């Protein structure tokens, strides 16, 4: 799979001339040392948010969803916004691990593990909202289609909301299995280094008897490839179906044919932004700067720029067609978005998703960690508002002006949303302590990338560039 010959323009993926042993040391270090104060502080904050969210959830389940700020015009708002937001965040991980794998993008190796972890936690956060919205979450199993004793009561196969159940549970399962398969060799490394008995036992069970033989590696790689192939369509299908929650309706602003690819691109955009936000913190705190290098961040910035611009194209297309269609209702919806009572939300969305990411055209800014951090947070905010704008502005002024209304979230809704952040970060912080954050095996496989020129210049006899050219011309003569 690796190139036998490499252009001298390739940059190294791992800095600092690491040995194989050093990589193992570095990858396992965060598991083996005691957590520092910073970690405890972060964990405490996250846990507090989670607790608050839990209390808010318990309260609204006990009281009913009348605790939300919905009214008879805006019947769907914060819950679905947050759901779509979190599902979107959950797209980068599998994209990085599956799609970039199939595209043979070697730079994915340093970031795939933690991105996949985020995917799984984000999907869990997302699933909470439909559960609460059911009102009686203990009946959630009713969404499963099976012959039952509730009379002829079957799920509605024609509803995209049911497709959501299938799409997201499939996505979650495959992502989790894919993540776990990737973890096995690294868990075995942690097992082999474990000093205490309990530690050894746990990692032994988790690593499934991995013995590092060539046969095991070969099977592992086959399985990984197959899972990448299976996971790739799922990256697309989940947000496609989420988009159909809206697009199958007849509501102007919701029903438009571009929604499936537009939502998928938006999800990748928001997912990459969240991965970038967290990795910028993580590489600093855990000293992974030689693994998650500026090149990695720059590549991610490029993905964010491209996807953000495609999202911009979709906004533009929608706006243009709203006029082009000649439908007064379509036209009104979009003018209302940009100039109506929720114009503030619309312009936050446009600024954060389309305008500020354009700064990433400049290489200097793409390699400036502070700028990237701020921009990635902007994208996170912007993408939340995108969903809010789509959901709420399409509803709040319907065909009957007497029922036009405004929507304000209640404290309970806000705290529930805060709680999902608590859950997300609690899980992520635990992950950083318990599981290897770097895919060592894969990183060891790409160490040689971009290193050849150093060895060549070490000999000092022939200028490497010239030597390569001579070699190249010889080669061409045979073509």
């Amino acid at each position, binding site marked *: 799979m690796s190139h036998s010959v490499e252009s001298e323009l390739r940059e190294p993926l791992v800095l600092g001339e690491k040995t194989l042993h050093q990589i193992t040391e570095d990858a396992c270090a965060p598991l083996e040392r005691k957590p520092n104060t910073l970690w405890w502080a972060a964990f405490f904050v996250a846990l507090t948010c989670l607790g608050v969210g839990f209390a808010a959830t318990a309260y609204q389940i006990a009281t009913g969803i009348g605790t939300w700020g919905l009214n008879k015009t805006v019947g769907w708002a914060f819950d679905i916004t947050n759901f779509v937001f979190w599902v979107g965040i959950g797209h980068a991980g599998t994209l990085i691990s599956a799609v970039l794998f199939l595209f043979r993008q070697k730079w994915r190796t340093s970031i795939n593990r933690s991105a996949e972890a985020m995917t799984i936690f984000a999907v869990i956060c997302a699933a909470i909202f439909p559960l609460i919205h059911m009102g009686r979450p203990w009946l959630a199993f009713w969404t499963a289609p099976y012959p039952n004793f509730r009379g002829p009561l079957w799920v509605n196969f024609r509803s995209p909301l049911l497709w959501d159940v299938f799409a997201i549970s499939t996505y979650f399962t495959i992502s989790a299995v894919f993540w776990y398969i990737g973890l096995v060799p690294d868990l075995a490394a942690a097992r082999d280094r474990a000093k205490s008995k309990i530690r050894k036992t746990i990692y032994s069970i988790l690593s499934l008897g991995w013995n590092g033989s060539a046969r095991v590696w070969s099977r592992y790689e086959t399985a990984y490839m197959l899972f990448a192939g299976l996971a790739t369509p799922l990256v697309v299908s989940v947000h496609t179906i989420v988009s159909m929650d809206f697009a199958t309706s007849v509501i102007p602003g919701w029903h438009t044919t571009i929604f*499936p690819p537009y939502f998928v691109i938006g999800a990748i955009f928001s997912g990459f932004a969240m991965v970038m936000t967290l990795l910028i913190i993580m590489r600093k705190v855990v000293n992974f700067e030689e693994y998650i290098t500026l090149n990695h961040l720059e590549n991610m910035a490029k993905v964010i720029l491209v996807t953000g611009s495609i999202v911009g194209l979709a906004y533009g297309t929608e706006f243009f067609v709203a006029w082009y269609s000649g439908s007064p209702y379509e036209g009104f919806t979009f003018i209302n978005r940009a100039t109506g009572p929720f114009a503030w939300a619309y312009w936050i969305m446009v600024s954060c998703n389309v305008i500020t990411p354009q700064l990433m055209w400049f290489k200097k800014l793409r390699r400036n960690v502070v700028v990237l951090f701020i921009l990635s947070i902007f994208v996170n905010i912007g993408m939340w508002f995108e969903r809010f704008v789509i959901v709420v502005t399409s509803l709040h002024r319907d065909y009957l002006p007497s029922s036009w209304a405004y929507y304000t979230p209640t404290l309970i809704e806000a705290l529930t949303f805060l709680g999902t952040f608590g859950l997300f970060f609690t899980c992520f912080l635990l992950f950083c302590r318990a599981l290897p954050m770097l895919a060592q095996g894969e990183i060891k496989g790409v160490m040689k990338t971009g290193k050849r020129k150093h060895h060549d210049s070490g000999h000092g006899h022939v200028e490497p560039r010239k030597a390569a050219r001579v070699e190249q011309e010889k080669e061409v003569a045979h073509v």
Partner: protein
Amino acid sequence: MNSPNIPYFKLKPGMQRLLAATAGVGLVCFVVGLFLDAHRAWGNWLLGAYYFTTLALFGTFFIAIGYLTSAGWSVSMRRVPEAMMSWLPAALVTMLVLGAGMGYLYEWVHPHDDGSHHAHLLHHKSPWLNQWFFLGRIILYFGIWIGVSQLLTRHSRRQDTDGDVTHTRSNTRTSAIFGVLFALTLSAASFDWLMSLEAAWFSTIFGIYQFAGLFQSGIAALIVLLVLLRRMGYLRDAVNENHLHNLGQWLIALSVFWAYIWFSQLLLIWYSNIPEETSYYLIRSQGDWWVLTFIVNPLLNFAIPFVVLLPRPAKRSEYILVRVAVMVLVGHWLDIWLGIMPYVSPEGPWFDFMEVGVMLGFAGAFGLVFFKALERAPLVPLRDPYLQESLHHKL
């Protein structure tokens, strides 16, 4: 650089005459068609002009993404997409010729003001859909595409002589700017040329749908042209089964992508069942159009390529790959034909000398321009910094 070692392509005079003759026959078919059924003749002209515009534009797009992603594998075949995009100036002419037949194709050219809602819609759209702006936009789109293509070709060829890496950097920058312009122009062009055939109808996904078709058929055309060159004895080592494997992966991935977009539009319009939108599928559900639209089209563009290309050996076999690629090219023709004809000649589907002739004519002319352009530079970009990676590409 005219050393005997450097491989140059040479078009055989017999082949050249054959291509020119095909182009001539196509023109005759078109002219005869004009007298028999002008609507359908112009429909076929639009189809041929658009089809080969997308293939040429694919050349630019493929090269641009190669630069943008620093792709190594595709460098040794780059002269082929470079030659594909040399069709663009000719494509501009073929699109401008359409100006003479617009009235037969686009109802918004001569709107009847009968006070109906439909007439009102056409009036509403007239700032965008009017003859002069339409032709002006054609010049604008092609101006951008031709300009970028020439810039890319110039630097690529100069690198052959001086081996300077700055050409790669400069082309990377050009490609980034092209990315933005390409997205905007292709969306608008597909709205103009195809979507506005049914002036009242609209679909926001339409630009992406046409992009999917462009990318998929472009890869198929690239495969066919590469295999053709290999059979003529060129590029034997520079493009081997590893490169074909990559292209095969692209073809299967894009077949899925095309199907995804095609189905998304169909599902959403069917599900919501709004009269303004369903008109598109209603006329395609009449008579024999139905089978072609809903069975044959997805079969050729998605189901068969997907199943056949799934096993690894199929993607590495020149024999299988080129057959699938030809089928996809036919499928893409069908896809656009189904975009144009049910509206232009609804009593159809007709398929006779006009369909075959006009398409062959365009293919002949495209082939002539393509091979002539291929003669003008060495068959591989000799000093591209990624050439070695490409020559040693292994999967």
